[in-house]
């Protein structure tokens, strides 16, 4: 069977268009990549960030978007230190919660890199809660939809302010900004300090970096 030139041109155009679609879909054009750094050396574990988050985002009792986990005391009185670990959404570049959501309610905003939930589309199957290896998602008892930290996307960020946790920190232990901007504070901190992220080997590419606290000895 011979193929006419016309058929060939039509077929190749279709293939090229189909092939281009996934490429266009995955590219980020001029989007920000909001990133946060938790400096565990500066963190004093006061949990002001937890309170501020709850207040600003009207998080109901019984669930939490943000937790500061205090370690067991290291050392004996009076030479004791603690390590504080921030548990909250990592806003991954490859979010497992977005991949598994059957209705597309869990999505990644291409303009900001923030992972958020559309409560109207969410049916509450809890697949995303199981899929998140950082275990930061919960079912909101009021909306019955899945929810988690959204970097104050609908609250503070929408008003041009920094996320509530960042604003409330008395020791400036939280740094927030656009990783795509090399001049932002967050980019410079990540470039100059020794940072670590958790569960990177799962391929999630998280955007919550941490500066490790030294164990024992003088914290300052």
């Amino acid at each position: 069977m011979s193929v006419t030139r016309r058929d060939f041109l039509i077929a190749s155009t279709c293939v090229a268009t189909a092939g281009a679609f996934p490429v266009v879909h995955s590219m980020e054009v001029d989007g920000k990549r909001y990133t946060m750094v938790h400096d565990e050396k500066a963190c004093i574990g006061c949990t002001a960030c937890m309170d501020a988050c709850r207040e600003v985002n009207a998080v109901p009792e019984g669930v939490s978007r943000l937790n500061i986990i205090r370690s067991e005391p290291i050392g004996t009185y009076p030479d004791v230190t603690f390590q504080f670990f921030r548990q909250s959404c990592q806003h991954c570049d490859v979010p497992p919660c977005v991949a598994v959501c059957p209705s597309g309610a869990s999505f990644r905003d291409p303009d900001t890199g923030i992972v958020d939930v559309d409560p109207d589309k969410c049916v509450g199957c809890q697949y995303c809660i199981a899929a998140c290896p950082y275990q930061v998602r919960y079912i909101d008892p009021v909306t019955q939809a899945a929810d988690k930290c959204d970097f104050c996307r609908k609250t503070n960020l929408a008003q041009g302010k920094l996320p509530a946790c960042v604003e409330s920190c008395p020791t400036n232990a939280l740094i927030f900004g656009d990783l795509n901007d090399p001049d932002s504070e967050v980019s410079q901190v990540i470039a100059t300090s020794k940072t670590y992220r958790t569960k990177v080997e799962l391929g999630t590419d998280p955007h919550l970096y941490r500066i490790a606290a030294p164990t024992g000895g003088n914290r300052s």
Partner: protein
Amino acid sequence: MNDILNGAFHFESLVWHGPIAAYLFLLGLSAGATLIGLLLKRRVIQGPAWKNGFIKAVAVIAPIGIVVSLLILILHLTKPLAFWKLMIYYNVTSVMSVGVMMFQLYTAVLFVWLALVFADPINQFLDLGLQGRLRWLARPIDRCVSFLSRFELSIEWVLALLAAALGAYTGFLLSVLKTYPLLNNPWLPLLFFFSGLSSGVAGTLLLGVVGFKESGDSPSAHWAHAFEKPIIFGELVVLGIFFGWLFLSGGRAEVAALAAITSGFWAVVFWVGVVFVGLLLPLALQTILPAKWQHSVTFIVVLTSSSLLGVVSLRYFILYAGQMTVY
């Protein structure tokens, strides 16, 4: 005792609980029964399929299985009344979404196939039932059926593929969860496929012999027994590979596997329910007991019940023990 049970069924990292295990079991049962029904109809049964007790059993188990599992799924949602959104919003990267698509197709094709298989009795019922009041439906339905029966072979192939896919889907659903190293295993879909198939055989045999009085000595029963043995054997092999992969992967996977099968309530469920009652006992009974005993109703009831118990135990074990260890 209370504390042990409490700790086994309620722990911090638990997201999906009991109803999901039931859903997994029923879905596997339905898919497995459908495959058995298709195989029986094509390979074993002589004459009209609908007269066979096992086909009747499949006609009960397969649709009820899928409908009840769907109901469980809907009721398990935190927003059950929003379930219809899953039927208009899709996400091709989500195993659950693909499953929902397959679910709907499978249910439709299953009902069509059952209508084709039971065309004669349905026609009779429409003709004579309710003092002939349904006769006006008889002709249009008859014409639909005779039109579709031209594609019977294609419909059966599609149904078989969908049933097989759904049987494996239950495994894929859990295996993409990177959070739980026990579940994040490439062998889980195959394990659940074999498990679903064996529950399908067991369920069909049980209901066919007990409910529809099919003889335990019929060609269909013989075939089902013969089919069951390699399935159980296959299940044992895949179970071994499943845990072998976990142990050899090291790290959290190894820790999770070791904890799951050596400590606590679920280890007991695994060894007693899954391995002994579900796999070794049926295999032993079929191998050791003389052939003439193997066709009595009692034997079939014991055999199929232990098989089914084993499959239920497997689904619960994988779901609960799997969620106990987090990466």
